[in-house]
């Protein structure tokens, strides 16, 4: 099955969504803390974080998840903003200095009643190939 939607021509099962790459910095994390009002010291207090089993600050999981949503909205536009669903697991923390690559692959395209349901597998990996977030997204588009 092949169709076009949003910025993706020729949408079909097995197709990869355009990747997003982000370099995590402590400055990003601090800004996200301010933007989200999440001031947990594990994210922003390096002295505190060094004394924990994590050994240093980590990015908010919700920051990395925001990148997943960015990839989806870039690909599907408003269909993602109203009707999008995501389900993920946080596997490994992202740390300052990490480069996170967010990728997605369409795993299912189903048409019914004038709508098309799209399922994608999503993955966020660090520069060492470790999974930071794994999961799936679902949405419907009019077509």
């Amino acid at each position, binding site marked *: 099955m092949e169709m076009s939607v949003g910025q993706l021509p020729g949408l079909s099962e097995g197709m990869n969504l355009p990747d997003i790459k982000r370099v995590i910095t402590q400055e990003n994390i601090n*800004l*996200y803390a301010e933007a989200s009002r999440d001031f947990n010291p594990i994210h922003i207090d390096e002295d505190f974080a060094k004394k924990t089993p994590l050994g240093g600050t980590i990015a908010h999981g*919700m*920051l990395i998840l925001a990148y997943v949503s*960015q990839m989806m909205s870039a690909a599907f536009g408003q269909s993602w903003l109203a009707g*999008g669903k995501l389900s993920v697991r*946080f596997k490994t923390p992202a740390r300052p200095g990490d480069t996170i690559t967010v990728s997605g692959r369409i795993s299912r395209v189903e048409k019914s009643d004038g709508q098309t349901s799209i399922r994608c597998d999503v993955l966020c990996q660090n520069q060492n190939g470790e999974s930071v977030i794994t999961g799936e997204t679902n949405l419907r588009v009019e077509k």
Partner: protein
Amino acid sequence: MPKEQKIEYSQLEAGYEFPPSSYKLDNSIVATYLKAVEDTSSLYQDAGLVPPMAIAAYAMAALSEGICLPPGAIHVSQEFEFINTANINDTFVSCARVSRKQRRGKFHLLVIDLNVSNQKQKAVLAGKTSFILPEYGEDN
């Protein structure tokens, strides 16, 4: 929320409903959020829309202001459903409810359902957030 108004993890039971939390996302907040997540898409600013993950982030912040989780609590999984778009300057009400609290070996699983609506009581977002907590959390 002052710490004394937070509920301790040990007091939580399945079915517990946190006090609703209200927040307005104005242009300045949305701009700060978009900068923080490095989202340069025209989708939001041009259309006056709020990124759904900004709504989610504020719902999660409201939740964390209402609960004392023990050290070592880990956010392990997250689900969100973006039900309707939201506009800049909308006021949101976030409701959270404990849907599951369960011992799993030396750890505890805590699952909290989130529902966010706008000032017209229209559903905007639903979610489910899961934490794993160390066993000593019960005593702290």
